[in-house]
Every structure is written in structure tokens, then in C-alpha cells.
């Protein structure tokens, strides 16, 4: 083995070691405090005083594809100042974390989101600042959000899920930090489309909007996700079509934050009776739709109280179907008996 070759092997070996050992521990995540030393263990858990299970485990693999990968643990868990630490307080999502928003160069915070929510139908206080009835039913951040995960898209030749290596190649020309490139790519392409699959969105809404108790208490009129599931949109979503609208597409005014969802009784809402067609006639959905089109009842259920006209119409078909088929089945059955015992005799006139 020549010296040169040995040297090359040595260099390759060194790179291999560097790649495999040093960065693999924290290629992306901002685990400066080495929190994962303990929190990588899935068994790190306890039952708290209320008998609720507290799982303190953080799955590093999944955290590394989440939108918060660059936020240090202490960025959200601000009360942790030393290791080992005491039991922590609940995370306040509105805290200013250590990320700097590049355009304003201000410390980043979710306060704006909260301002939107305060104006929305989901706000806990009404517009006079008084607590709403059944305030405890109204959602807080974590009722809808778990750790958001990146859903990158590739646009290189065709649109497909995932990261385009070809596009990354372009990034690498100017940007040298691999984790920055991938994070930036993930962030931008995830933001260009739905952050979650329609079915995952529907699941989130269903946790409250399909709960019969909440539906009844807040007079919602429908188990929204259930009735959505009976429409073509909902069925296509179940078959994982991402082109169909989910709850947010129709219930949020175009171009506004999903956090600022308004009641359909609010004349500014896109779900308001006169505005509904604007949601349907979105350029990517059913362009050219009229007010009449929007009088289609999306959340109609087979329910006498909720949609009596649809109920009786369905009932007609149910009776038609059952009323036709069941007698025919009886004839088949009798025919089979007749053929099974062709010569059986019942006293009869001849």
C-alpha cells in the first residue's frame, strides 16, 4: 500500500468517523444543553399527582423533522436553568424564544397567533371581554397542535412530496451549512402548502366538533367532521387526496390566518350565508360558482331534526331499496327451498 493511498484512506476514514459519530448526535437539533442525554429514553415518565401520565421522552428523529428543530429546549421550557432540573411548568406558547425573525430582527413569538385567536370564534372571551359560556370547552394551542412536522415538497420536474436533491444541489452552491439548507428547504416548501394532510386536520377538528356533548352544548347543529366525511370531499380525504378541501379551506377567509376563524353568523365570515360561494368559487376549486351553488348543504346529516328534507328523500330510497330487494330475496329463498325439496307434499287441492 502506497503512502498516498494510505493517507487517502486515512482521510476518508476520518471523514467517515466525523460524519458518523460527531454530528449524528445532533446534526440538526438544538440540543445544546444535552437534554437528550436523559430525554432520549422512552421510559422517562411518571404518573403525576392527578394520576395523569407524563411522558418526558422526546423522539430525536421526529423532532429533527419538526418545525421547532432549531429552537433550544430552554427556548420553550424557559424555567429550566440547570441540569438536573426540577419538575417543569407548562410551556407558554407565547413566550419569546431565541429565534430571531429575519425580516424584523425581533425575537420570535407566537403572540400574533394568539391575537388572531382572540378575534376568532374560538376565543375564550367575547368581544366585550367577558368569559363565554362553557369557556372551558374552547381550545388552547395544544388542543389542536402537537409538534408540527415538516412536509417538504419537490417542484423540480413535477410536484411530489419530499425533498428534491436537485434543488438542494443549487442551494449548496452558495450555502455551505447542510443543516441550514435542509431546514430552510423544509420550512419554505412546507409553508407553500397544507401543513397537515386534510385527514389529519379533520381529526383535530373532530376531537371537539364530533363530540356529541360539545355539539349539543354549543348548538353546533352537526357533527361537523362526520358530515364532512359523508361528502365527496371527506371521502376523498379519507383516501388521502390532498387536493380536496379540509375544514380550514372553507371555514377560513381566504388569505387570513386559520387562527382567525369566524362564526358563520358573522357577516365578515366566509361561511356567512351570503359569502359562502366565495369559498367554493376559489380559483382552484369550482370557479364561476353562483350563490345558488353555495346553497348546497355541506353538513347535511341523515337526521330528521337537522335536515328533514334530505331525511325524507333518503328515506324514500331506503324504502325503495329495502322494499324491492327484501321480497326478491324471499322469492330466491323460497325458490331454493322448492328446488331442494321438489317432491315435498303439503295437503293441497289438485
Amino acid at each position, binding site marked *: 500500500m502506497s503512502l498516498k493511498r494510505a493517507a487517502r484512506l486515512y482521510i476518508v476514514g476520518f471523514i467517515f468517523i466525523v460524519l458518523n459519530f460527531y454530528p449524528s448526535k445532533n446534526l440538526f437539533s438544538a440540543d445544546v444543553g444535552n437534554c437528550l442525554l436523559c430525554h432520549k429514553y422512552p421510559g422517562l415518565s411518571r404518573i403525576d399527582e392527578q394520576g395523569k401520565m407524563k411522558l418526558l421522552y422526546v423522539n430525536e428523529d421526529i423532532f429533527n423533522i419538526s418545525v421547532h428543530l432549531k429552537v433550544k429546549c430552554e427556548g420553550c421550557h424557559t424555567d429550566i436553568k440547570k441540569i438536573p432540573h426540577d419538575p417543569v411548568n407548562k410551556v407558554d406558547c407565547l413566550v419569546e424564544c431565541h429565534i430571531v425573525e429575519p425580516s424584523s430582527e425581533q425575537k420570535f413569538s407566537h403572540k400574533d397567533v394568539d391575537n388572531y385567536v382572540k378575534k376568532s370564534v374560538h376565543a375564550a372571551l367575547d368581544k366585550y371581554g367577558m368569559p363565554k359560556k362553557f369557556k372551558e370547552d374552547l381550545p388552547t394551542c395544544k388542543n389542536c397542535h402537537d409538534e408540527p412536522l415538516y412536509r417538504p415538497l419537490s417542484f423540480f420536474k413535477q410536484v411530489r412530496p419530499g425533498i428534491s436533491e436537485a434543488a438542494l444541489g443549487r442551494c449548496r452552491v452558495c450555502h455551505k451549512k447542510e443543516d441550514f439548507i435542509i431546514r430552510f428547504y423544509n420550512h419554505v416548501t412546507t409553508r407553500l402548502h397544507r401543513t397537515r394532510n386534510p385527514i389529519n386536520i379533520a381529526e383535530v377538528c373532530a376531537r371537539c366538533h364530533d363530540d356529541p356533548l360539545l355539539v349539543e352544548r354549543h348548538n353546533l347543529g352537526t357533527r361537523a367532521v362526520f358530515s364532512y366525511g359523508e361528502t365527496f370531499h371527506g371521502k376523498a380525504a379519507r383516501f388521502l*387526496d390532498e387536493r380536496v378541501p379540509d375544514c380550514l379551506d372553507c371555514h377560513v377567509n381566504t388569505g387570513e390566518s386559520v387562527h382567525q376563524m369566524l362564526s358563520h353568523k358573522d357577516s365578515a365570515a366566509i361561511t356567512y350565508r351570503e359569502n359562502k360561494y366565495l369559498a367554493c368559487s376559489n380559483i382552484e376549486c369550482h370557479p364561476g360558482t353562483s350563490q*345558488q*351553488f353555495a*346553497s348546497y348543504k355541506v353538513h347535511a346529516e341523515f337526521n330528521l331534526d337537522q335536515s328533514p328534507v334530505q331525511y325524507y*328523500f333518503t328515506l324514500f*330510497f331506503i324504502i325503495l331499496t329495502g322494499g*324491492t330487494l327484501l321480497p*326478491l330475496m324471499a322469492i*330466491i329463498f*323460497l325458490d331454493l327451498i322448492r328446488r331442494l325439496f321438489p317432491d315435498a307434499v303439503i295437503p293441497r287441492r289438485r
Partner: protein
Amino acid sequence: MEKYPLIKTINGRRYFYRFSLNQRVQHIILALSVIILVLTGMPLKFHNAGWAPYLYKIFGGIKAAPIVHKAAGSILLILFAYHIIYLVYVIYKYQIVPLRDKERRLTSGMILKLLATQPLVPNMKDARDIRDLMTYLLYFTNKRPDGDAFTWKEKFDYWAPFWGMVVIGLSGLIMWNKVLATKIVPGIVINFSLIAHSDEALLAALFLFIWHWYNVHFSISVFPMGMVFITGYLPEELMIEEHYEYYVKIMKQAGLDNEIRPPHGAHSELSTDEAEK
């Protein structure tokens, strides 16, 4: 029409003319498109069922299956239009024109009477046949009802899909062209279309795949498969079992009075089969 002999004898067995080539081709197109429509439609209706995603995947999943469904639906609608034209043409050419030539005049009353006596139009005999079938099935008699050229079952098989195609086709077209349709009708019609389309389709599918297939394929006198939809000719035994009245008429017409076989139900047919062995 004249080119089909009413009775054919192959290997010593008599076969009776039922359907022309044109009708058989229409039927096969109908059958295939309906099967495809059901297979691409039912996974949506029963989207929660375990089998739904797999069946849907065969037709290309949510991206392609709706297109397949619309294509098959279009074929069916074109076939339906063709069938109406065919029907009008055949009745006009072979019945109305000769009638006009014979009577030298044509009133609407005559045409109505002619239409009402078409072989596929339900009549009182069907009601009697149904009653007779029930008495036969409940062992009150050993005599099967002796059906005419088209029995009530066949009329059912014809008119159920006929009505179904109107309902399903219309509602399908509305849902397909919903933006255009709601320029004329209110949005609630889309609700109705959805209900009508899926519920009527379920009725049609169950009706065809259970009742129709039982009668033409799975019933033990036909099992394993009735061939009349391919050959256009029905074997003598089945003709006797289902269309005895018509059978006698045809035999007499052909001058085969002496060779008319006695009527029988399924039981005696079994024993003749045994005897032949």
C-alpha cells in the same frame, strides 16, 4: 329482424331465439360499464369499509378512479341514448309503419295501444304469474306459472335499470357539472343528487348482482352460467320452465305440434336429468 330463425336445432337439441346481435352487444356494454361503475363507486359509498381502499387502488386510487367512473358513466349514458333511438326506430319501422299500411290511417289511440301491448310492458298476466309463482313456491300447486315471451322477472330486469339509468344518470350529470347545473337549479339539488345517485346505485347493484345473476346464472336450472346473453338462443328446457305459454305458441307456429313437451317445474326437471344420465 327476420334473419334470426325462431328455432335452431344443434346436436339434436332445440334452441329458441331470444336476442338479436345488436341487443346482445348493447347488453354486454351495459354489463361491463355497470360493473366498472359499481366497482369504482361503491368504495366511495362505503369509504369506511376495510376493503374500500384496496378496491379503489385497483382503479388508480382517488386520482384516477373518479375519471374511470365518469368515463364508464359516459359510455352508459351514450348507450342509453342509443337504446332509446334504437327502440323508437324498431317500433316505428317494424310496428307503426306496417300498422299504418294495414289500417291506412294512424291515430294516437292506436299508437298508445300499440305501445301498451309491447312484449316488455307489464300487464295483468304478470300479476297473475307472480301470484301463481307464490302458490307454486309455497307448495300449493306443482305447476309453475307458464310465462309469456318475457316473464315478469325479465320485465323487472329491464325496467329497473331503465329507471335506474334515468335517476343515476341525471344525478350523476348534475354532480359532474355542478357549477353549470346550479345556474339553473338550487344547490340543494346537489344534495338530492348525491343521495339519489348513491342510494339508487346501491339498489341497482344489489338487484343486478343478486337477483338478476341468480335468475340467469346461479339458479340450478341454469348453473353454472346462462349462455343466452352470448348466443342469443335459449335451450328448450329453460324455455319450458320459464316461458311455457310462449313455447307452445312458437312450436305451433313452427308446425311442431306433436313435439311439444309437457310443462314441468324444477323438480321434474331434476328427475328428467337423472333419467338422461
